[in-house]
């Protein structure tokens, strides 16, 4: 997990980097929703736009594919399931299995849509600092009563910070157990309990130390508020995207 680098912020001076994070977050939601409703033509246009954006941002598509290898297997399974479960003109018939032409089309569209959402997410993450994402979430929670937005913001930050650390610790615990031949024990319940107990103990100890360290640095929910600066062109981008998404919803 510590090597998971493709899905991370990449510093740069592009317009996508400079775009107000709140607008980016709205765009992310809008485009993701529109993708889920889009047909092949709209998906084609969106794919073209996104590929241009990915190229413009120099994002490493190869590394992304490598990191998403297990997710791609899941998508393949989705495609197969759709192909098999949708009724229509049979394309391949083998014993009791029938793959229909309509099923393959539907499967391809679903996979295409999911891949586009991932790509939109990638461009968002690559051009937005985690701190800005946290600040934007806090900002959107402002009008919601009874929600401790500062605490939620801090929690988002801590999750982003500690996920790699927790995975590293899990890897270390597993390695330590492998070094003591845990693989010779075939009982999965035994192996799970032997892994979970030390792993959770370590995670809770880390959480304890973290709480003390935060206290030592005067942690309080009354903190400096993040600052945003939405410019006219940011709203223009939002307007253009909103019109495009509306067209997809309408047609």
């Amino acid at each position, binding site marked *: 997990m510590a090597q998971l680098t493709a899905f991370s912020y990449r510093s740069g001076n592009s317009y996508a980097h400079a775009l107000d994070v709140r607008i980016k977050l709205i765009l992310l939601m809008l485009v993701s929703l529109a993708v889920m409703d889009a047909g092949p033509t709209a998906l084609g246009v969106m794919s073209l736009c996104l590929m241009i954006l990915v190229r413009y941002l120099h994002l490493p598509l190869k590394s992304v594919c490598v990191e998403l290898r297990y997710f791609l297997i899941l998508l393949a399974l989705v495609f197969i399931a759709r192909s098999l479960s949708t009724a229509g003109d049979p394309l391949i018939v083998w014993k009791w299995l029938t793959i229909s032409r309509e099923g393959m089309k539907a499967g391809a569209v679903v996979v295409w849509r999911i891949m586009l959402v991932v790509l939109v997410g990638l461009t968002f993450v690559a051009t937005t600092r985690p701190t800005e994402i946290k600040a934007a979430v806090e900002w959107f929670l402002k009008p919601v009563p009874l929600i401790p937005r500062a605490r939620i913001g801090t929690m988002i930050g801590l999750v982003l910070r500690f996920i790699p650390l927790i995975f590293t610790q899990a890897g270390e615990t597993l390695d330590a157990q492998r070094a003591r031949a845990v693989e010779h024990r075939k009982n999965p319940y035994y192996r799970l309990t032997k892994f979970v107990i030390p792993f959770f103990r370590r995670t809770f100890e880390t959480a304890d130390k973290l709480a*003390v360290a935060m206290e030592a*640095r*005067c942690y309080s929910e*009354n903190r400096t508020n993040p600052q945003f600066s939405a410019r006219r062109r940011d709203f223009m981008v939002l307007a253009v995207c909103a019109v495009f998404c509306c067209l997809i919803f309408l047609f």
Partner: protein
Amino acid sequence: MSIIELENVSHRFPDGTAGLQNINLSIMEGTLSVIAGQNGSGKTTFLKHLNGLLLPNTGTVKIAGEPVIKDIHRARQLVGMVFQDADSQIVGETVEADVAFGPENLCLDPTDVRKRVTAALAVVGLTKLAAQRPHLLSGGEKRRLSIAGILAMEPRIVVFDEPFTSLDYPGTQQVLQEILKLKQSGHTILVTTHDLEKVIYYADRLIIMHAGKIVRDGLPDNIVREVEAFGVREPCTSRLGMEALPWHN
């Protein structure tokens, strides 16, 4: 002028174990003091009393003339603490976000936060890694990031709890250099360790703790030969009858 004063400080943990026993101590501003002792001797417990992370059962801890209990927030701002485990001290999702954490807690203006972050990163030489995610840093860099996070709060006292633990030679040198830079800039430094070798040359004062008590306190040259009685290894130079040598080049 004394910046840290402890009068008859004792602390007992909830299970009844004595953490500190009748500690009386006064530390002058701008000095570098080394607190040595074996594991469980009370070094970390002592440090945690300086910024109110632990409060004494009896006695008073004063920082810059004010009792810690009177204003814990002030004590935490004045006493920056660099913990033993840098990984669990770093809270930010990026290097600069971590450094900004303290100033943001102090509710400073965003412009001031930015200024302090830039200055602190420059001091520890991490400016180029500002956008980096902390888990990708080396051990030495993580420790320097912890120091930057503390410096951004502009403390007068910086305490290091076992700062050289699990660091390689370059990492240790980097941290040692940061400690010396802080001392030169007028900060009061406290370093706890059970490995005197690396810091004894720079120490103005050596304090030995054992079972929650201060058992020796004085100039390093005067007491360094007695440390082994309290579970601390005597530095090689001292064993060979030589004067202490600087550890960093």
